[in-house]
């Protein structure tokens, strides 16, 4: 267990100073290195875990977040019985005493899936016709059909899915990973978030809280990349100042900081020097990263990108691949139009079309570059949708939804867990959000029970206080 008494300021300062020293020493080491031949592109910034608890299967994670809550019944959980019951009253034996969202105080009718399901790959996983490209990769996927969550509204459900808690000020999973494992990129943030709106009905807002570092130091927070203007806030030099001039400016700042640090003996000054160096490297690397001119037209086509850098989910997936290639630890890619309360037969195919090819192309590219077996890909929303209809759509549902994982340490071609015959409730091998987090940490070589930080007197964990389990059934 990490006995870092974050909440006690004494210890927090010690912690910050220790981290400061780590980074400071790298920066000073880097100064030496700069006098020598070119440094390798990747120098890791160490994490808080001195040794990992178990073998590490993956080095990075990408979370393809279908925000709004995609219907499992039209994607990965085929329910012929529900189809037969279409339009009939939904049996109250399922729903009595259960939480409802927009279906509160209305009669409950079954709504059959409107999509076709077919079996794919050697494994024969049933996947709906909405996702033909992802289906191509069926034998790489571990589909979990028995997810449950605790939060029935978007905002807290996202918070729960990202941080394992609905309390504000809790670190998101990406922040935990960065904190524990450090970063492998010396010129890009270790945790990057890409969000796109999507063009169909069912758009949901997503808060910056979802990638917050919470009580961890803010350098572990997710850094959102913008589609408009500078990709990273304030990364461009003002007035188009030439690069070499800005470099000299940063050198002047650091030179004076060094002189004053010697006089004040302020350890934060040493960290500051290192951060200016990092900032300047980001100013060079971010434009290089986001300039996708070197991507081939057929690549763009595979992802479904009309114009590289247009901020669509497809373009963001391509950007995500470039981030992962450059050692970024955690990338989240949001598509924000999956809240299909109504008009789902029109809106859902649009949302699927905007994401399906890109997700599949990402898997292809990672595999082709030999990165897939060290990368974990997670696809899913913050909750699922009701087997009961809500007019022309479906309401939020927390008792059952589907996600899939692929990549390092994952047993491809797996279906894990199941729901009852109407898809109302996860009944077999139920997987909680905390279980999912425990599994992700496990793949990174971390025992979730021993990965904690003191906060307000408690050992705060990503996986909360109740027992959580690693989902062994999806592991290779």
């Amino acid at each position: 267990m990490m006995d870092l008494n974050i909440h006690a300021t004494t210890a927090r300062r010690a912690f910050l100073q220790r981290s400061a020293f780590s980074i400071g020493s790298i920066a000073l080491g880097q100064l030496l290195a700069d006098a020598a031949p070119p440094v390798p592109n990747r120098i890791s910034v160490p994490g808080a875990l001195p040794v990992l608890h178990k073998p590490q299967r993956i080095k990075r994670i990408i979370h393809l977040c279908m925000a709004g809550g995609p219907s499992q019944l039209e994607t990965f959980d085929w329910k012929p019985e529900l189809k037969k019951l279409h339009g009939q009253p939904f049996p109250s034996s399922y729903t009595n005493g259960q939480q409802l969202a927009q279906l509160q105080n209305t009669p409950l009718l079954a709504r059959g899936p409107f999509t076709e399901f077919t079996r794919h790959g050697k494994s024969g996983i049933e996947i709906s016709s909405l996702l033909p490209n992802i289906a191509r990769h069926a034998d790489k996927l571990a589909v979990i059909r028995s997810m449950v969550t605790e939060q029935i509204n978007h905002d807290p459900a996202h918070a729960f899915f990202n941080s394992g808690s609905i309390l504000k000020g809790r670190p998101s999973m990406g922040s935990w990973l960065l904190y524990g494992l450090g970063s492998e990129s010396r010129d890009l943030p270790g945790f990057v978030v890409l969000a796109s709106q999507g063009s169909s009905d069912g758009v949901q807002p997503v808060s910056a809280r979802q990638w917050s570092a919470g009580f961890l130091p803010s350098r572990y927070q997710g850094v959102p990349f913008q589609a408009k203007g500078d990709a990273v806030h304030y990364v461009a030099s003002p007035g188009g100042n030439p690069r070499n001039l800005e470099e000299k400016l940063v050198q002047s700042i650091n030179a004076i900081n060094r002189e004053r640090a010697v006089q004040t003996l302020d350890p934060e000054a040493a960290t500051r020097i290192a951060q200016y160096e990092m900032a300047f490297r980001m100013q060079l690397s971010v434009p290089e990263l986001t300039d996708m001119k070197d991507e081939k037209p057929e690549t763009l086509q595979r992802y479904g990108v009309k114009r590289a850098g247009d901020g669509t989910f497809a373009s963001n997936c391509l950007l995500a691949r470039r981030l992962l290639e450059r050692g970024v630890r955690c990338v989240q890619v949001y598509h924000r139009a999956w809240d299909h309360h109504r008009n789902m037969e029109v809106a859902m195919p649009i949302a699927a079309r905007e994401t399906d090819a890109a997700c599949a192309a990402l898997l292809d590219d990672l595999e082709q570059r030999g990165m897939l077996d060290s990368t974990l890909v997670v696809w899913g929303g913050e909750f699922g949708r009701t087997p009961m209809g809500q007019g022309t759509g479906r309401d939020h549902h927390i008792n059952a939804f589907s996600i899939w994982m692929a990549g390092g340490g994952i047993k491809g071609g797996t279906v894990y867990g199941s729901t009852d015959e109407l898809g109302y409730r996860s009944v077999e091998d139920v997987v909680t959000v905390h279980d999912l987090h425990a599994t992700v940490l496990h793949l990174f070589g971390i025992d979730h029970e021993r990965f904690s930080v003191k906060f307000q007197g408690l050992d705060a964990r990503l996986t909360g206080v109740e027992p959580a389990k690693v989902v062994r059934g999806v592991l290779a």
Partner: protein
Amino acid sequence: MRNSGLSIRLLAACLPLLTTITALAVAPPKKTVQSPVTPQYNRDVRPILSDTCFPCHGPDSAKRKAGLRLDIRESALAQKAIVPGTLSGTVWNRITNTSPDLLMPPPAAHKPLTPAQKATIKAWLLAGAKYEPHWAYTPVSKPTVPGASTGLSPIDAFLNQRHKQLGLTQAPQADPVTLIRRVTLDLTGLPPSPDDIKAYQANPTSKAYNAYVDRLLASDAHAERMSVWWLDQVRYADTVGFHGDQNHNAWPYRDWVLNAFKSNIPYTTFVRDQLAGDLIPGASDASRTATCFNRLNMVTREGGAQPGEYLAKYAADRVRTVGSAFLGSTIACAECHDHKYDPFTARDFYSMAAYFADMRQWGVYADYSYTPEPELRGINNDSPFPPEIVVTSKALTGRIDEELSAIKNIATTVPDSDPRYMAFLAKSGQYRDLNGDKPQLTLNAPDGSDWHTPAKTGLVVDVPRSAVMLAGIEVTIKQPQTPITVNVTLKQGNNNLPFWHGIGAPHTPITQNGFERIGIQSGWRIQSKPSQGEAKAIYWLPRTAFTSAGPIKITLTGTTSDVRIKTIPVHAVHPDTLEPQREQNAKVAFLLSGAGLEGVTADISDRLRSIVQSRGGRTPVMVTEATNKPRQARILARGNWMDTTGALVSPATPTFLTNAKVNVAQPASRLDLANWITSRNNPLTARVLVNRFWRLFFGTGISASVEDFGAQGEAPTNPALLDWLASTFMDRGWNMRSIIREIVTSDAYKRSSKPLPVHVEKDPQNRYFARQSPRRLDAEFIRDNALAIAGILDTHVGGPPVKPFQPAGYYANLQFPDRDYIVSTRGDQYRRGLYTHWQRTFLHPGLAAFDAPSREEACPVRTEANTPQQALTLLNDPVYVEAARGLANLMYASIKPSIDNDDARLNWLMQRVRGTAASSTERMHLKTILTESRKAYTTNELPGRELLRMGSLPSRIDVDPIDLAAYTNVCRVLLNLHETITRY
């Protein structure tokens, strides 16, 4: 790096630094000063037991294992877990057991005891295993000040005693410039003025220092600085936080806090008004405004949210905030179960929540078909969050007065011969002749009567050609059949003449993302019949339409009631007043009329706009409104809001804090809660507050865990000092300012922050305060400091939130409603950071980069990080580029021509930024960037010109733009220095 040789030289220079910093940085977090004496329970033993034993053998009855309770001595003894004076109890046996099955804590808990911890427990057991009541829960008594006759301040007397015991040499006093900069930044969040530095340098006496401190404490800037701190404690923000994160009207509460600090009201009143200002005898608009505190929790308007679930969330949020802000307690942990470390029970949690069950509130702030709330009918995503009251805002009335008086001042500069003024006099014949009597012309109906009867399709009236300029029209509806929304448009030929402002009485506000849309020009809504019968409105034309040309067509739709229409020749009135009045001063009338505006200056126009945006000085604010039917409050097992089996509870304070009982009528109210919190017998309130004040001025509390005074918190390193401060605070009538003054006038506060070798060795974390600690400025003050140095800070106090530049598209992920970010204009661009619009889900990136909290949750302590984003912000956020240009502008204006050269300029700049001149090596580094910039901009002028165009601050036109741009870069270096954003 340009010159690796230079880097290596610098590195060599850094080596001693590196050694020292290493010593400071890698020191173990546990305190290294160890007393060789018997371990004390509170200081040494409880922290170990609490962390490793109490979770299963402590206050939480549900999780207690083997029925064993170790947090109470009698239980531990009764079960032979502890046999005082021996190692024969089971505790010692189990913590030293070699069998993994018997070892405590169990290996699965991953909390192994270290040999040092075991040694502490051993020594304590052998010495008789004495328990002590938890330091924070014992009554506050006033300790005797040691060596009372030494002439030291009590703070210094307590600290010195400890330093002597520990052999800690004290750091010398800081030099005058460091000290004056420190105390000014600490007390106001702003730098000292050059004059103040000079004055103190010339006379660095205690008397001069104390007088300066008193001046700072009485300033608006001090109230602003303290408000920044308090707004964190109470999670103040301008938006609701959940889902659509809509705006809510809370800023008048922020102004109430400002005023409370400015007038230094007792902490008792401060707490009482916020919790229960609506319940006190003689409740006023001000005390009701304070109750917005209870409304600052995050709320939702999301469709499909369950009211019951959200009401439970709101209740828990309030308990957490009261626990955190006033009591320094983590009572929040008792939401699902009894507290694991402290004697808070789940019943305590829900009993605390019950105090707020009387509040008029809704779980979901909208009326959806699936969750009907008839009281909220008609509310949409643009509506405010009821209940609200309308109050007078000093900031708004002050602004109106300021603009009017500015217009009057400008009027004195209008020469009699000004052609526009002469034209105004000539054309406003009717103004001069008729004002006061009949300044207006009624447009009669075809039948000759004053009243038109509009058709269903609307009413069209022609304005005849006239010799008098048309400034606007007045519309009166005789007996409006409500509800209606009236629209009036004006056309001259084919051109629409848009109105720039309209006022109507009565009118029902139309809101846009929570705020009332200014004016009725885009729709005059009347919901209910006016009590005076008639409804009246004035529509003002913009200055460009100010015209005597005709004919003009007026179209009116939305009502079929009788309507009277008059023209207004000129408006020699303040544009937000419905009744035209004569302005005696013809030149003021000329400016107010708008006639003087055409082609002259945007200034008058801006001021008129500012006047109408001040809404007559009135503003809505969310408040607490008590209902006489409080909601049922019950214990929710495991915090589950759907579980209705838990026991019902009444409002009550935590049972274990019995010594703080106050007599209350039943059922107890929020006012009783406030009285209990500020009762002299409450052991927590005063201790928590003075400890937080201490942290503001030393960087760490006397107990480092300013947010948790429970068993898991850190015991104070100088308990007598903490208790002396707490009791003195209460003795002095809970006078906040007096305690702050006591702290910042102590010798301890004035010490140098540079550690001595003995500090590195014995107290690297500075837990005993034998020196000061450097502190990076808070996010808001980094901005304020830069703007103040540059001389461009706008020091207006209070008022609606402002919107400084922000990267485009930053709110793209926000819906319900979609929103634009309209950047503030004029001085509002350069206001202090605390006035920045606080969007909870997307806090301004410049503030967020420097660890300003989103304020979704009460934030007793900000995290302090040091990140590349901070560097990027200071380098490239337009506000810092503008500040750099402002500073360069100021330099040109201030430097004496007789000594003007680059060295003098660089010295002047460094002096301005940190109070002392540049060293020769610093000058060398600054000169490098100056020379390089000049060279670069001489080769290619464009980037320099673009640099000078950033933001809205004008550049000096009397200096060479290349030089100005080059100095702007020098100033950017200065504003980016670690020293600039740190107080030493």
